[in-house]
């Protein structure tokens, strides 16, 4: 057993951390969000070309650094520390994860473009009725000659307004929440018939409602086997769930340290409020949740390549714990700050908003407790 990082991993973290400290201060982030596109595309280019960061989790054959889940996790954690709005999760973890899993010509073609910063992928999987059930899909992909025709509506697709490609789950057969008949496609985001309604999200990203209206896509857009895509989707969503937990580790660590700092300098009743025992204990509770989030994220990251049932149980255990932690740490950070925590003026409130959205991203605590029980508590 060894929980230490390699020299390369330490270097990735340090390089990224330094870069983000220079580029992602609170004011710069606000400016990116307020700009027309809602982001600064220069950051993504720099991450790819100056830092080589987008290749960290890809193999050397594809031009990457030969890393994997651990690299994704530490990059996501650093991004969380500045509540970055970069589409790393969608492009590298989800899109890249799917491509690594299926391999072949499409992976050879697209992965180097991801590493180069030329491709941004958005994951169009959720539907209004499906909530966190990945198989509950009404979007259809009908076979049409050598290709398919897509119809349907995907909701709250993060990063879609920026995307060059969409990773889309659709039914090539079956119905309801049936496992069979689910397929996964990687398509050009500018294909005719794709209609988007773009909007900002409460946590600073851009997202879209994506409507497919008789969208003709080529046969080679299919990732994996037709109708057998659910296990692949479950796998990449598990990887993304752990990545979001890693991001949460960064977000909650900052919520905690920011609260500590504030409590030390805020005076009431003639002393810093950090001297009050009720607040000390609260900050200790926050600290313990931050630490346990890191523990669970490490555990789940190391179990991502186990057989599906073990992987799923580990990921659900991690997300359930981290969702609860994000809530506890976020709410108590605001409460300890008092009124100033609820304003747009301080970064702390923005960390709280992201922490809140992480709580339910890829499934709420309840959803993951239920999945954990299904896998581990036989009647």
């Amino acid at each position: 057993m060894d929980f230490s990082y390699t020299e390369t991993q330490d270097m990735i973290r340090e390089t990224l951390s330094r870069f983000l400290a220079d580029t992602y201060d609170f004011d710069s982030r606000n400016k990116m969000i307020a700009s027309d596109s809602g982001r600064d595309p220069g950051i993504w280019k720099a991450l790819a070309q100056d830092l080589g960061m987008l290749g960290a989790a890809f193999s050397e054959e594809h031009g990457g650094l030969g890393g994997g889940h651990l690299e994704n996790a530490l990059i996501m954690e650093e991004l969380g520390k500045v509540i970055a709005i970069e589409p790393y999760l969608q492009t590298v973890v989800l899109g890249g994860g799917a491509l690594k899993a299926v391999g072949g010509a499409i992976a050879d073609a697209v992965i180097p473009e991801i590493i180069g910063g030329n491709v941004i992928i958005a994951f169009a999987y959720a539907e209004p009725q499906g909530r966190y059930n990945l198989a509950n899909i009404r979007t259809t992909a009908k076979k049409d000659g050598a290709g398919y025709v897509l119809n349907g509506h995907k909701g709250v697709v993060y990063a879609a307004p920026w995307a060059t490609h969409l990773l889309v789950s659709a039914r090539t057969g079956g119905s309801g929440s049936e496992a069979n008949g689910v397929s996964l496609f990687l398509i050009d985001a500018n294909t005719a018939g794709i209609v988007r309604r773009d909007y900002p999200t409460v946590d600073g990203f851009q997202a879209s409602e994506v409507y497919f209206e008789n969208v003709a896509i080529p046969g080679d857009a299919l990732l994996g086997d037709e109708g057998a895509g659910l296990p692949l989707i479950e796998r990449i969503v598990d990887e993304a769930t752990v990545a979001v937990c890693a991001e949460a580790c960064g977000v909650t660590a900052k919520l905690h340290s920011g609260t500590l700092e504030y409590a030390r300098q805020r005076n009431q009743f003639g002393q810093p409020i950090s001297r009050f025992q009720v607040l000390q204990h609260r900050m200790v509770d926050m600290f313990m949740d931050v630490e346990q989030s890191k523990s669970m994220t490490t555990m789940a990251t190391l179990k991502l390549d186990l057989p599906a049932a073990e992987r799923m149980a580990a990921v659900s255990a991690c997300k359930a714990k981290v969702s609860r932690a994000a809530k506890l740490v976020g709410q108590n950070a605001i409460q300890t700050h008092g009124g100033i925590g609820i304003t747009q003026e301080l970064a702390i409130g923005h960390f709280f908003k992201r922490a809140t959205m992480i709580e339910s991203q890829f499934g709420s605590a309840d959803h993951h407790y239920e999945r954990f029980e299904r896998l581990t508590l036989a009647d």
Partner: protein
Amino acid sequence: MQLEFSPEEIAFQQEVRTFIAENYPENLRSVQDEGHDLSKEDFLSWHRILAKKGWIAPAWPVEYGGTGWTATQRFIWSEELAAADCVGTMPFGLSMVGPVIYTFGTPEQKARFLPGILSGDDWWCQGYSEPGAGSDLASLRTKAVRDGDDYVVNGQKTWTTMAQYADWGFFLVRTDSDAKAQEGISFLLIDMKTPGVTVRPIITLGGEHEVNEVWLEDVRVPVENRVYEENKGWTCAKFLLAHERTGIAAVARSKRGVEKIKAIARTEQDGDRPLIANPFFKRKISELEIDLTALEFTELRSLAGEASGKGPGPESSLLKIKGSEIQQRITELALEAVGHYGAPYFRGFGEGDNEHPIGPDYAHRAAPTYFNTRKTTIYGGSNEIQRNIIAKMVLGI
């Protein structure tokens, strides 16, 4: 003791229900349903209807414009208002400064200020907190120095809710810097149009403009606008905070909130089942509902005590703590209920923007409301301070 309403009370309930149904402004209803911010006029339109009817201040003594209702009637009234989802009336005049003025004010002050509070012609705001004086309110530093028949006031207040609309504000100011913290404070009524008063917006996490900073620079306030004795303002402040806390339980409104969540959970799908069939979610609704019942009957016991002559005492801190926590849990559950559609940021309709917002109507405000409602455990004396009050005043430790 008995739980059922008397025939008279049932008749009263019917009267109230009919009145609301026949008089609540239609346009206000649609503004609320679509999740828009309410304007000053929106709030005032309902206020004026109630004022005309004579029902604007049920808690006030009859001689000052109250209704003379029993505690039970007032309970029925607030239940019916909440059940019909009526906008609240602004508390700053009706629940805060009004009672201070009729309790501590001079006959001239009562004659001058109470009618405007009742009619809605005067919009009030509260100048209590300062950047350096939050939980430790008595450390406030805004200074009022006597100069002939005026005080000259300098300082800064913050978290002043709806001050952007206010005609008048009630302010705690320091009139004696040498006295012990609580003993050198006076309670002043300040015309917000006085030269030297500047109101600056503070934007909160949901993007709302609800609260403000109020800067006071050489603001001249006639001595006749001081309520109660000089340096005795803390008595008014404490009285007001206790009054503020009883309403703060917001039981009737929370009941309505729980009903709304049930309605959402029946509409929302959770994969192959409606959300209401999700056992985890269902349990959270019942926990909330049961806790709310406990709060409700605690409040009713407290009201019964008040009716028998005891004013709101330190036990109202219990109502504030539990009431505010429940309000937060309601918004938490509402956000959870809307799933993915908590994420889109709804900024209201811009000018000429008629496109329907993203997701179902009940989802638009879920996240901003959740963020914003973190305030309830902070304002009106933070819940930490309320626990201190209970420890000291009720438990005697």
